[in-house]
């Protein structure tokens, strides 16, 4: 893994920033919620206190507790517009949200009801889904052998009244008073009740009935039922849907007609966008005011942005849907038409403690806070007062902050990663460049070629570059020292050797005894050998100087090599030389120095003869291809150790293992290299197999040769 990958991996720790932000927002949310709860509890406490002072108002409505939460209850809200008793739904349109099932569905019978009252009348509209509508037979007096409605109530005097409505044809219908005996509706109607009016209309799935009942007829109990009869002959009730039991006076559902005074009081107490409820101890609604606004006021800019969202934000929205807490779907907010409140807050309030309860509605992003408080009269809990407020602002705010923060952190993350990536790329580029430059500084032959390093920058890489540069500098000085050491050494040794030699020369040999003469001769031999060593040592230095002043001339390579080979045959009479020159290589001229080339060949051949196996030939060949003239010198014999191949052409490097008569200082092949460089050529050495041997290949380019 490169620096880049590692930095990227390191930058992943940045991901902790959005997580921390998220944690922070969560705690912020809980704080906001608590603050909101506290505020509402404060308010509902005040309202409860006000309520406690309205004993009269409460007394009107607080019904006797039956301690039966299942008993039906109807809270009839007021109507703002007049209702035409015509069986059409038009004038009920604005009360759509009041529509609720009348009771539990029974078989295929479904009944939806909307109710309301104006000053004088209770209006009920029932939409009945019935696959087979059976009308009353005109011949029959009975009104229980066809589809019919049952109305049961306690009137203002507390008398139990039962009415039934059936019709022969759709249109205006009449209610009939029935005998009040329960469980016996197979009775003939007593008399029509003209105060109850109704309209029966045929509808697509069944029929619709709209009923008007004077409020003066209704006491505090009221139930309504729809009976579905499919067989007019025996009149068996197939299905029945009811708001409460219409047959038993004790099981009759309660009804409360909303009280304008109560509404007025509650409207005074409540604030905008909130809804206030008053319940009795059976959780039955006895008063309410206000409506929750459905949505929330979004700022127009956000709206505008949402109307044309960029793809990025759409993606992000999807992403947030996945990770953020979203209101659950399917919660049906029918509370606005509820007649009974049943939630933990009410339960706790009835137990004597204020409590806040959060719920979500079917509307996404909408959370509703419901706070209930007990209402005391004479230290006795007579009901609860509750305030309900749309708190979606918190969730929206929270989600917005999260989105904004997430967007920012993702942008920051991407930006940081981008910057890190760029930085890492730059770093690794610089390190690569430095490495390449260092690599390039030392050639294949191990010689320091040039020290060109980018060392200007003041940071650590610049430092590294500078230290490499100074290292290479010192290495090259050391190499230089090695290369010149032989000439320096020869120079320094020359004077003391000359002292010894001149002193020996000065000995008057005639006066010496024979033994001394022998010693002097031996000393002289030693000095001569020492001298020849010194001469060889300074040879390379001399050659370097010669090369500096050498003039280039065009000459024929094959002629020079041929002449050399002829010379070697004379010089080494015991050695066989094979010479080959390809036709294409004949009479090829190069620019250079024939003397130096000959000197190079001398060294190669000298080397080859030293290592050549006995009775094996030394092969010298010239070939020409692609503007390159290659001269090969091959001898059979021991191969070169691999580790020495690179430095073989350096000064003072020798692989000779056996002592030879002539001194070897490892300068011969160094001279070869100097001359090769003078000719801008290349020299390589290879081991060969079967038979073992060594091949030197000198490649000379034909620069300006003709």
């Amino acid at each position, binding site marked *: 893994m490169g620096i880049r990958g590692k930095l990227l991996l390191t930058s992943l720790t940045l991901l902790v920033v959005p997580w921390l932000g998220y944690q922070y927002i969560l705690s912020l949310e809980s704080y906001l919620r608590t603050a909101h709860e506290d505020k509402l509890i404060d308010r509902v406490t005040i309202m409860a206190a006000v309520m406690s002072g309205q004993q009269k108002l409460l007394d009107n409505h607080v019904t006797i507790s039956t301690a039966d939460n299942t008993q039906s209850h109807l809270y009839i809200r007021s109507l703002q517009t007049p209702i035409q008793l015509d069986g059409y739904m038009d004038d009920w349109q604005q009360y759509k949200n009041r529509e609720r099932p009348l009771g539990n569905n029974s078989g295929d019978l479904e009944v939806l009801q909307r109710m309301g009252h104006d000053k004088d009348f209770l209006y009920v509209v029932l939409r009945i889904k019935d696959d087979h509508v059976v009308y009353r037979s005109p011949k029959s007096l009975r009104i229980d052998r066809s589809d019919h409605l049952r109305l049961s109530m306690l009137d203002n005097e507390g008398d139990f009244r039962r009415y039934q409505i059936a019709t022969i044809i759709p249109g205006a219908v009449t209610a009939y008073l029935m005998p009040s005996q329960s469980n016996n509706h197979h009775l003939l109607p007593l008399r029509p009740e003209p105060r109850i009016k109704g309209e029966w209309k045929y509808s697509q799935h069944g029929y619709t009935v709209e009923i008007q009942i004077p409020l003066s007829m209704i006491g505090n109990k009221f139930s309504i039922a729809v009976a579905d009869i499919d067989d007019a002959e025996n009149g068996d009730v197939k299905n029945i849907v009811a708001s409460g039991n219409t047959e038993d006076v004790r099981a009759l559902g309660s009804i409360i007609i909303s009280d304008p005074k109560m509404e007025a009081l509650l409207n005074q107490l409540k604030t905008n966008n909130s809804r206030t409820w008053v319940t009795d101890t059976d959780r039955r609604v006895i008063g309410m005011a206000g409506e929750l606004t459905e949505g929330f006021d979004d700022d127009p800019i956000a709206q505008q942005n949402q109307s044309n969202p960029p793809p990025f934000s759409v993606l992000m929205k999807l992403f947030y849907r996945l990770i953020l807490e979203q209101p659950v779907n399917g919660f049906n907010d029918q509370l606005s038409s509820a007649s009974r409140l049943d939630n933990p807050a009410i339960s706790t309030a009835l137990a004597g403690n204020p409590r806040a309860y959060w719920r979500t509605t079917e509307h996404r992003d909408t959370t509703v806070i419901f706070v209930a408080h007990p209402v005391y009269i004479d230290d006795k809990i007579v009901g609860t007062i509750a305030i309900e407020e749309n708190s979606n602002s918190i969730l929206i705010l929270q989600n917005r902050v999260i989105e904004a923060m997430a967007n920012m952190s993702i942008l920051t993350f991407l930006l940081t990663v981008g910057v890190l990536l760029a930085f890492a790329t730059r770093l690794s580029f610089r390190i690569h460049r430095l490495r390449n430059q260092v690599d390039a500084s030392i050639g294949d032959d191990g010689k320091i070629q040039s020290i060109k390093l980018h060392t200007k920058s003041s940071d650590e890489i610049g430092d590294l570059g500078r230290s490499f540069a100074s290292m290479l500098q010192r290495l090259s000085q050391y190499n230089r020292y090695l290369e010149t050491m032989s000439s320096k050494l020869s120079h320094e040794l020359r004077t003391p050797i000359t*002292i010894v030699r001149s*002193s020996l020369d000065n000995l008057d040999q005639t006066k010496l005894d024979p033994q001394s003469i022998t010693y002097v001769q031996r000393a002289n031999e030693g000095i001569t050998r020492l001298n020849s060593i010194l001469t060889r040592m300074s*040879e390379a230095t*001399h050659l370097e100087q010669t090369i500096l002043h050498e003039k280039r001339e065009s000459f024929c390579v094959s002629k020079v090599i041929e*002449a050399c080979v002829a010379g070697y045959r004379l010089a080494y009479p015991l050695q066989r030389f094979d010479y080959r020159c390809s036709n294409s290589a004949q009479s090829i001229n190069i620019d250079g120095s024939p003397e130096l080339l000959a000197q190079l060949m001398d060294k190669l051949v000298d080397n080859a003869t030293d290592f050549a196996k006995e009775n094996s030939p030394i092969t010298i060949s010239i070939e020409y291809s692609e503007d390159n003239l290659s001269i090969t010198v091959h001898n059979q014999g021991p191969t070169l150790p691999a580790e020495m191949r690179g430095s073989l052409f350096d000064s003072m490097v020798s692989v000779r293992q056996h002592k030879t008569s002539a001194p070897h200082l490892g300068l011969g092949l160094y001279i070869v290299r100097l001359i090769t460089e003078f000719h801008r050529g290349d020299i390589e050495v290879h081991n060969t197999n079967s038979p073992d041997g060594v091949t030197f290949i000198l490649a000379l380019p034909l620069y300006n040769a003709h």
Partner: protein
Amino acid sequence: MSKRITIVEDEEALRKNYVEALQKQGYEITSYADRAAAAEGFSQQLPDLVLLDIGLNDEIEGGFELCRLLRQQSPTLPIIFLTARDSDLDIVSGLRLGADDYLTKDISLVNLCARVAAFFRRIDALQQPQADEQQLKRGELLLDMNRYSVSWRGQPLEISLTEFWLIHCLARHPGHVKSREQLMKDAHIVVDDSTITSHIKRVRKKFAEIDDTFTAIDSVYGMGYRWLESSS
């Protein structure tokens, strides 16, 4: 009257050895260890021949300066550099300053004495009428064995003693290849191959100054050099 030789050499042991060896040959020797003393001595009297070391104590080119000084005083005084420095550059510099010869210190005393004697013989011979029997003629080349002088097409060449011996070695047997070792031996010098090559190049250049078609000294690669009689 014996010949007077001055030796300027900073190495005491070496100086004394040279002095003793040359004294045995019957020369009158004065010796100096540094440039200042030598310059002082030369201002009083010039010897017949001077052996100069180049590096004198701290003055690494003290010998060159002395040579310049001597040449101002006398254009004909034989000056021989005798030094440990054997680089081509030093040889060329020395000879350019007007030195008659340039010897490296690994020369044996015998060779040195022979060379000094040859110098004196040459000076003497220059004062004598020319003796034909001591001459060697090869085509356009004329070698005077007494005066150690060379002429090409009748024009004399300015050459050092080493160069004379090299030419003589080659021209004595025209067509025969002389290896570098043979050339060194005949010129009484011990140098390396490339120094011989340099010497040969200088000699060729001197001939070329007179005759730019000169090709008599032929390189035989891998072996050495030979004199081609048929040239020109």
